[in-house]
């Protein structure tokens, strides 16, 4: 949940990148980390296996600037995508303020996308959240690959509520900041409403 500290004049929010295994969640964070000025970011922590698959989570704090005299800090997390790490995914969703679902656009990963999105909705419900009411962005990643499903088809299958949909190639950085901006904007708008 958003944590506002009046003494240090800081707003802290938690954003979670969700999606099937190897869809590019960590790559999103890595690109944000590589493209951000050192003073605006903390360390990128990766709790990964020896083969660089996310084991528990990746984490990086990012300071975006000041709103109404408050520093806005976003804590970016990824979940492990592999199906059998579900217990970890549930834990990471606790206290979430906004979710990015990173879909893999390749034809052969469509089932994995659907399963992961269903899993997200279920795990959110288990924590008392409703995806429909949560700041949320759908990112269609890997748009540079040859065997991809058309955008409209992916949207028809994966879009849940008219959320912002961003096409991306996380490995080159395309769409990565647009995605972050779209979710951060919704989180701050939610704060304004609350």
């Amino acid at each position: 949940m958003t944590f506002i500290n009046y003494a240090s004049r800081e707003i802290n929010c938690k954003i979670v990148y969700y999606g099937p295994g190897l869809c590019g969640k960590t790559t999103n964070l890595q690109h944000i980390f590589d493209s951000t000025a050192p003073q605006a970011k903390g360390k990128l922590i990766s709790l990964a296996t020896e083969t660089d698959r996310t084991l528990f989570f990746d984490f990086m704090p990012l300071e975006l600037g000041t709103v109404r005299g408050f520093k806005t800090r976003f804590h970016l997390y990824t979940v492990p995508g592999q199906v059998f790490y579900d217990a970890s995914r549930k834990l990471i969703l606790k206290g979430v303020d906004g979710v990015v679902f990173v879909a893999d656009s390749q034809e052969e990963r469509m089932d994995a996308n659907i399963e992961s999105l269903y899993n997200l909705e279920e795990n959110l419900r288990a924590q008392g959240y409703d995806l429909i009411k949560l700041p949320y962005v759908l990112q269609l990643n890997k748009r540079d690959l040859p065997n991809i499903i058309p955008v409209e088809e992916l949207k028809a299958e994966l879009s849940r509520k008219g959320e912002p949909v961003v096409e991306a190639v996380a490995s080159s950085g395309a769409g990565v900041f647009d995605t972050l901006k779209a979710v951060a904007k919704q989180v701050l708008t939610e704060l304004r409403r609350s």
Partner: protein
Amino acid sequence: MADAPILLREQQYYEIKAVLARLRLDSSARLVFLIDKDGQQIAVQGDVGNLDTTSLASLAAGNVAATGGIAELLGEKEFPTLSHEGERESIHISVIGRLLLVVVFDERSSLGLVKLRSKQIARQLADLFEEVTRGDYDDLESTFSQITDEDIDSLFS
């Protein structure tokens, strides 16, 4: 929607800091942190130096969450304390409701002393934080209802 925001006011922040300062002194610890279970740092007291306190808060919360998951599998509600002892630096974490009290200490202290002192102030911290979560949202309304789309866009310019 997401949970309601937590507002920590200046006076509450300094009250919490004072309690942590006392604990640090009484337990001869190097550092004392208060974080919430989601990994948000609430206050820190002590010699931070170059330590990345944001990452430490996030990892400590992850650690507690993971062991909490294990506890649940074993039929326990939770493991209320966690300790890790290193060659030079050690860490003790107490779960106090939705708060985590983290004490980093070295050979100038001992696990027994840190455990004892942490236990002694747990109630006080829980009471202080209950006040925080009971707080009204009038300030929030006046400060953040004025956020404009331009304010938000400017963060990404």
